[in-house]
């Protein structure tokens, strides 16, 4: 760890092969992100973690740290851009926090709080995305999907099942499950799967668990995103 780069004026040590985001997290500096998860190969799709490296925008989750580089992250300009991306995600799907059981534990919501998102700003798309309640233990509510593909990667790389995938293209991109019927009940998905635990938003929900933790005691009620929290809770 004898190499360093500068992040918002602070010297960040890194190991060969580490990305900017990994090195920053290691040094305790928070960079907002949604599709990145330390246990999986970086994906680089949500673009929330975009920083400026030597003046150029780049996703910090996929960009390897290089000694001496100068990185801007927590600036008014970049946070405004991140806020606009978050607003895009909110209007693209149907995110009605008051009726979502992930509320308070949702990374998208916490990111929006962190960035001071007071409104969705853009016109809503209000897409029609039916839910899938077929599985005995898990509900899939596609209305909240942000296409981060963490469940895709978890099911493929950890569970070895390929239960999830993205299909369609462009604004029509959507999550599908591995069954001719298109129903989760007809896949080999199980509650114990890694894929059941990685959703940063409220798509993959354990049944009969909703609203178990009272308001005020949920993960992001206790500490906002970016501040140290008890990591044993899982994501």
């Amino acid at each position: 760890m004898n190499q360093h780069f500068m992040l918002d004026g602070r010297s960040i040590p890194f190991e060969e092969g580490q990305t900017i985001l990994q090195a920053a997290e290691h040094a305790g500096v928070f960079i907002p992100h949604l599709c990145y998860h330390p246990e999986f190969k970086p994906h680089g799709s949500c673009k929330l973690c975009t920083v400026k490296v030597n003046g150029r925008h780049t996703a910090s989750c996929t960009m390897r740290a290089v000694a001496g580089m100068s990185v801007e992250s927590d600036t008014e300009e970049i946070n405004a851009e991140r806020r606009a991306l978050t607003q895009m995600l909110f209007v693209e799907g149907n995110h009605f926090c008051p009726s979502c059981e992930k509320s308070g534990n949702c990374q998208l919501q916490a990111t929006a709080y962190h960035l001071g998102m007071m409104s969705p700003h853009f016109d809503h798309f209000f897409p029609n995305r039916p839910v899938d309640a077929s599985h005995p233990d898990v509900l899939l509510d596609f209305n909240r999907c942000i296409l981060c593909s963490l469940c895709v990667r978890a099911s493929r790389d950890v569970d070895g099942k390929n239960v999830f995938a993205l299909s369609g293209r462009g604004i029509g991109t959507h999550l599908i499950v591995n069954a001719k019927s298109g129903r989760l009940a007809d896949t080999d998905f199980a509650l114990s799967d890694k894929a059941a635990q990685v959703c940063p938003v409220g798509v993959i929900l354990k049944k009969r668990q909703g609203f178990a933790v009272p308001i005020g005691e949920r993960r992001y009620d206790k500490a906002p995103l970016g501040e140290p929290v008890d990591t044993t809770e899982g994501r």
Partner: protein
Amino acid sequence: MTTTKKLKVATTSLAGCFGCHMSFLDIDERLFTLLEHIEFDRSPLTDIKTVSPDCDIGIIEGGLCNAENVHVLRDFRKNCKILIAIGACAINGGLPAQRNHLSLPTILEEVYHTSPGLSNGLIPNDPELPLPLNQVHPIHEVVEVDYFIPGCPPSGDAIWKVLTDLLAGRKPELGHGLMHYD
């Protein structure tokens, strides 16, 4: 806070549940402090029916579900210097907007024709009744909105914070604890 002339504040609830207004009352005894700086114009609190043309601040709860909502919103925008959207429904349509994936004819059929227990099964067509829009919209999609207070409802403290920030000429900000969407 400097006091010169009292600011005129109007409030209303469109497609909302008045929960945000209830939360407004949760400002509690600080309402007295507030009333040193503001006076209420059209509002459920005053029962004044029309917005005065010289309002300083308009506060809108609820989204747009029908034609009357649109009329009231336009009236507020026209007469208020600053317009504030308060609560989830005004900001993203909220609970009422969860009908948006269904077509309006399907909804009206279900509610007035096919539901069990209906006596005559007619869709009301009295000209006194406002017609529903095909989808519920948040208010910023129809008029320009200056400030937003998220929450379902936002807490009294959040409302207090935004109003006092505005009265003091600051950009309203909600920090951790006050900023929530639920």
